[in-house]
């Protein structure tokens, strides 16, 4: 139904390697881009745009983490800390040098990439669960450092207020303006990641993930590429931190604690490891699910609870439903939402002649 493959003939290598093998895929992407860039921010009310903004920020972080975990097979539970590195780098640049966002965002990313690469050094020697603990240590060390070094954490309570980003002299204040601002970086992140993973570097990442010894034998410099994976992934995390700082107008270390790292891991595991679409679906799922379960419980909760108990029941039930739905989706499709989507798509592709 969606994809008609017959009659599409490729006559050059470039066409065969294209990001979208089929014309319809290109149209679909263009339609989605039009919907979310042109229509959504102006058609939706401010509240819904604010939810989309939270999703957009999460998308960048999830894409970055997926490069490391999904494509390279190295685990990190220090991504919250890498975000805080980006956030504080940008916040200091803004408050002390009045740097504009087109300097602070790359700067935050580069700083996080440097720290990430350093944290990635143990990945040469240790793997899997051991590497997880090493990155956990990084999370704690970075948190402690930000917390205790006033030169980094600036003002009171380890938080630095940051003015809104300005574009052509106008500060971006409303949710719609911020939406378009954030969307630009999400588009960059999506395009960047989709192209990265089908490049030489990306293929090296995948080779390392699938079998690192074999990858080494065919001539991939494992140390080199593992560090690149950490650096690129941390770059995304740093950018996420900066975007977050601009969105909220403050850099605060408590926004980037361990639970945030875990949330992002949940996003890519639910969305699908090693896929761009999966990262986005995961970011949407993890951000939206708690909000939607709340709407659901507010509308239907009176069936089960009295009005007074409801206030206490909603947050607790929400956690239970959230956990339950995650388990449900993982049992239905362990490879994540991305695979679920592809199954649906493949089913309709040959529908109604499924055999």
């Amino acid at each position, binding site marked *: 139904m969606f994809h008609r493959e017959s009659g599409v003939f490729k006559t050059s290598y470039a066409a065969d390697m294209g990001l979208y093998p089929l014309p319809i895929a290109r149209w679909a992407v263009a339609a989605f881009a039009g919907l979310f860039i042109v229509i959504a921010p102006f058609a939706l009310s401010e509240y819904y745009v604010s939810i989309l903004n939270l999703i957009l920020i999460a998308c960048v972080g999830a894409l970055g983490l997926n490069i490391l975990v999904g494509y390279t097979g190295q685990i990190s539970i220090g991504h919250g800390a890498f975000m805080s590195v980006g956030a504080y780098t940008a916040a200091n640049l803004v408050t002390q040098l009045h740097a504009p966002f087109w300097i602070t965002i790359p700067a935050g990313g580069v700083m996080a990439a440097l720290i990430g690469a350093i944290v990635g050094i143990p990945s040469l020697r240790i793997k899997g669960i051991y590497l997880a603990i090493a990155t956990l240590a990084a999370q704690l060390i970075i948190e402690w450092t930000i917390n205790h070094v006033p030169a980094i954490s600036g003002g009171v309570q380890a938080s630095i207020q940051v003015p809104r980003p300005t574009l052509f002299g106008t500060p971006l204040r409303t949710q719609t303006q911020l939406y378009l601002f954030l969307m630009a970086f999400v588009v960059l992140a999506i395009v960047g990641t989709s192209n990265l993973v089908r490049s030489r570097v990306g293929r090296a990442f995948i080779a390392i993930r699938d079998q690192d010894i074999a990858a080494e034998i065919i001539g991939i410099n494992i140390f080199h590429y593992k560090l690149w994976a950490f650096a690129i992934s941390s770059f995304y995390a740093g950018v996420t931190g900066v975007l977050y700082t601009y969105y909220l107008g403050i850099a605060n270390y408590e926004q980037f604690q361990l639970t945030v790292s875990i949330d992002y891991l949940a996003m890519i595991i639910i969305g699908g490891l090693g896929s761009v679409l999966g990262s986005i679906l995961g970011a949407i799922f993890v951000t939206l699910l708690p909000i939607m379960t709340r709407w659901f419980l507010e509308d239907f909760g009176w069936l089960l609870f009295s009005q007074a108990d409801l*206030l206490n029941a909603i947050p607790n039930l929400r956690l239970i439903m959230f956990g339950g739905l995650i388990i449900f989706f993982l049992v239905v499709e362990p490879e994540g939402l991305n695979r679920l989507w592809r199954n649906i798509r493949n089913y309709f592709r040959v529908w109604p002649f499924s055999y």
Partner: protein
Amino acid sequence: MRNMTALATVALATAITFAGPAMAQQKGEILIGTQCDRTGPTQIVGIRICPAFQDYVNLVNSKGGIEGFKIVAPEIDNEYKVPPAVEAYERQKQQGAVSMSLYGTPQVQALNQKLEEDKIPSTSPGFGISASADGKRFPYLFPVAATYWSQGAAAIKFIKDKLGDLKGKKIAYVFYDNPAGREPVPILEDLQKTEGYELRTFAVPPPGVEMGAQVLDITQRYRPDFIIDHLFGRSPSVAIKEYKRAGFPLTKVIGLVWASAEADIDAAGGWQVAEGYHTMQFAGAGDDFPVRQDIKAMYKAQGKEPPKEMDDTVIYNRGLLVAALHVEAIRNAVKANGGQKPTPEQVKKGFESIHEFTLGGLVPPLKVTQEDHEGGGWVQIFQAKGGKFVKETEWFRAYPEVVSNAVKKAE
């Protein structure tokens, strides 16, 4: 089986799709947006302070509301996380909230700029930054309760009254090692210059559930004349237990406001363990307040038992204080607006004209002004004695000029 899962998925998806957020607001209603943490790391406070807020709102409504307006206070749990707090804020703003009761330090900081842009006043009792007492720099944030700076100063004044003279006396400052824990330190150092005491700080690494060695270090090696505890969560009770075990008299320990609830005493092993422990409060502790009797009567009239949250009087009363100040600010705003429904901007002015509103002694004699959003920085000291908190001092404020200098200096 396959069909069942498919069916379940479809059913769930439909249910969630049709469950949109309720947005409409009735006429004749005034909305206070409240946030809470009933499931996150600070739930020990949230599960008591938020029901208190709701109880007070219900009490006001049962007495006819504010000048004929019914108060609605929808509550959203932010799990002490920032993104849900942003979502909750935007939603309540859209619903037309005239004031916000935000919850949690990172959440208050993250939303501060939004408050200023949207011109909606919010309370942040015991959260956020001490400098937000300055109404010029933080025009829409109302700490209302005594800030950490005022608390630090009050602790020193209390110790001075106890010990007579502070010259040469040793004070140990035991704090939870996070920015909030460190915040009173500059005040303590400022006062050291004029009062001449010896100060040593002891950082308790989070989560502070193992303090045995540290307490021995404090009590056996440093041997302070008085200890100031600025701890959160589980750690205050651990500290009380360890002081007791080390044989340090609890009559020489004072806990700042988040180390001073009945729950902390219970967790430390009960009142006989904590006998003598001093606690600092920004709302009156105990049951002897008319408003608490009114709430009990309200429940009785509905044929229900008063909620068990009321038993933790310290935290519950703080919830009453916050709710009462919101209601009072809205009342001021409605009056100033000639009985019409006020705008958030008018409610901000309403907060700034709160004066001589004590709620039978539960609320300190606050005087909130355009410059001073803290309302003076009043505290009371209670002592654990014979199974309950007994009032030791009346409402007092300490070294206001030192604190206000620090507020002015903070950038």
